[in-house]
């Protein structure tokens, strides 16, 4: 029998091949042909969810915690904030602003969100800047500089900047700082950088640096992303929303339903990695680690991801994964579209262990999601993952396939220890990486900037 692979795309193609083959290295496993039913209900995106309110978080973090946010916001009541970024939909920044802006407004910190405009030429340049700032090679031409400046100037003229606090997200609109007026000395400008600047292309960074230095403060997602700058730099970890489809509590009946649809046997241990089919996530390494571990302990592997249908590299990686899987009946590959958040949630909750064996990573929000669900988590010690996983306390950090295989074996055979890791991981997220913590950080920053500018 071949590995199970399911694609829930517009055509809902579910691939399956003949069950005659048996995996040479895999232990015998019951054939479950019925497990490849076509989940038609997930073919289209669900309706948008209404924005959450602050009090909705009381059930998660407690009433006292929400009261603290309200006390923190008191001195900011009536102040105005403008957030500016480059896209209203899609991407982590827009998703975060969609949640943050209503919450700040609810606390009467009047927050407005503007999105810059630009032609294809502008977004091609800024995409190249984005990649270059994260370390890619790039030849910065005068033409690219001109396009960047021209569109920033057009947006400067189009957008009003009269608020008490202006927050510019990412490099695309960074030059809007030129809108700063001497007639508003108490106005405070913040640059929120969501990308990894630890080894930027020097030319692009030197082009942007003079703009960044004119802000009152910069915010980075990791200590290692910060640069030598003459302005204060703050650390805001990315966060997850515990009330979102991806993270909210779901009943066990739904979890069972999802497992049934995908042919996952909940009576056996389930090891899961949720991530795009991307070499940075090392899905092939996960397959090898799983196969090593399974020599000692019975388990199944679920590789749930996306990106294989609209990304040539993703498709190539998926092909490599399938080759590594071979005819293994215990490995289930799911190529899911972006709107399957609730199904991903259920898969994570069904898992015994979650793996994120990245070899390069930004912050690693899939790790945050796993920890939030109280799952013992094994992850590569890269990017922002060590901020989340304290080895042997909130999860297990690994540096190799062998290390990953060992940790899978260890955690599956030491359930009490695994449970403790899961509990600690959940608390770690609750304390540091939830949307409510993010709101707290924003309020704090505004308070600190307010006192520095005597707003």
């Amino acid at each position, binding site marked *: 029998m071949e590995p199970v692979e399911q694609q829930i795309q517009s055509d809902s193609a579910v691939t399956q091949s003949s069950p005659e083959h048996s995996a040479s290295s895999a232990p015998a496993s019951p054939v479950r042909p019925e497990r490849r039913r076509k989940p038609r209900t997930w073919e289209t995106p669900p309706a948008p969810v209404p924005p959450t309110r602050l009090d909705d978080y009381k059930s998660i973090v*407690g009433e*006292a915690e929400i*009261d*603290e946010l309200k006390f923190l916001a008191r001195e900011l009541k009536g102040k105005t904030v403008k957030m500016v970024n480059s896209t209203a939909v899609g991407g982590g920044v827009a998703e975060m602003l969609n949640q943050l802006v209503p919450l700040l407004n609810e606390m009467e910190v009047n927050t407005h969100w503007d999105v810059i405009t630009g032609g294809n030429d502008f977004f091609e340049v800024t995409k190249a800047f984005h990649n270059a700032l994260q370390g890619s090679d790039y030849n910065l031409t005068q033409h690219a500089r001109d396009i960047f400046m021209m569109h920033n100037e057009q947006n400067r003229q189009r957008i009003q900047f009269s608020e008490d606090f202006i927050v510019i997200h990412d490099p695309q609109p960074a030059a809007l700082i030129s809108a700063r007026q001497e007639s508003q000395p108490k106005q405070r400008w913040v640059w929120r950088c969501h990308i990894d600047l630890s080894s930027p292309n020097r030319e692009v960074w030197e082009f942007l640096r003079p703009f960044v230095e004119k802000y009152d403060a910069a915010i980075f997602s990791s*200590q290692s992303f910060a640069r030598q700058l003459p302005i204060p730099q703050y650390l805001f970890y990315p966060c997850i929303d515990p009330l979102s489809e991806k993270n909210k509590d779901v009943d066990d009946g739904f979890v069972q339903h999802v497992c049934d649809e995908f042919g996952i046997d909940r009576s056996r241990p389930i090891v899961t990695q949720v991530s795009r089919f991307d070499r940075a996530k090392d899905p092939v390494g996960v397959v090898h680690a799983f196969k090593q571990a399974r020599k000692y302990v019975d388990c199944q592997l679920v590789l749930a991801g996306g990106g294989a249908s609209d990304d040539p590299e993703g498709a190539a990686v998926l092909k490599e994964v399938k080759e590594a899987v071979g005819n293994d009946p215990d490995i289930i590959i799911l190529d899911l579209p972006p709107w399957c958040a609730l199904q991903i949630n259920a898969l994570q909750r069904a898992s015994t262990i979650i793996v994120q064996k990245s070899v390069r990573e930004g912050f690693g929000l899939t790790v945050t999601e796993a920890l939030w669900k109280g799952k013992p988590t094994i992850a590569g010690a890269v990017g922002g993952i060590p901020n989340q996983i304290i080895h042997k*306390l909130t999860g297990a950090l690994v540096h190799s396939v062998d290390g990953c295989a060992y940790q899978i074996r260890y955690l599956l055979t030491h359930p009490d220890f695994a449970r403790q890791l899961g509990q*600690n991981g959940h608390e770690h997220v609750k304390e540091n990486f939830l949307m409510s913590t993010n709101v707290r*950080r924003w309020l704090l920053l505004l308070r600190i900037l307010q006192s520095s500018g005597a707003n």
Partner: protein
Amino acid sequence: MTTATVPNLTRTPVPFYFNTSAHLLRITRQKANTLSEFLNALRECPEGSIFQHSFRTLQEHHFIREGFSNDFAHWAVSACNEPSLAEGLASVDVREFTSVAELRERFVQIVESFLQRNPAAATRTARETFYFCASESVVIPTSFVARTLQEFAQGLRGVTVHCIHHHFIEARLRLKLMSNDFSQWLYEDMGLTEAARQLNRIDIYTVTLEDVRNQIIRIVERALI
């Protein structure tokens, strides 16, 4: 349940206002890739960094019962593979210090002493960089005020663990005393010397902050009887 008697009171008790502190992390210029660099950074970093990586880290990891005392000790073992240095750093009890300057000096002494004994360790590259961050704090009120021991116990049950940390652990830097806000109030305003003393004996390094809260509540409830 009756209000506890108030022995030896020399002044009118004042209410206990439960406050809390919120902290923002500022990334400083200091970072270390070797123990030698770490020692220099320890000497030069702002006081907010020493506070962050010792007092505050205890709060950020309040749910862990053992194995995590401060960021310095954690880095020494996880990135430098120096368990004996880590043990030395982890043994520092922040409650023995009433100023960050004294606390910094203690950490510096431990690292200096280790490097004198192990000079080869000074320039060995760590597996991960240690980034010094500094805490910027804002004190905020809560809705809890106690005028009696019952109200005090209610407040203890209702506030966040951040509030417990603020009054019970961070307080000594404000008070400049080897004590905490709760003990001070029990002693000065309620006249409960023994309860105040018992609170100061709670071991914050072997339990979670929730456990600490529960121990405080138990001591207060015993005083109520």
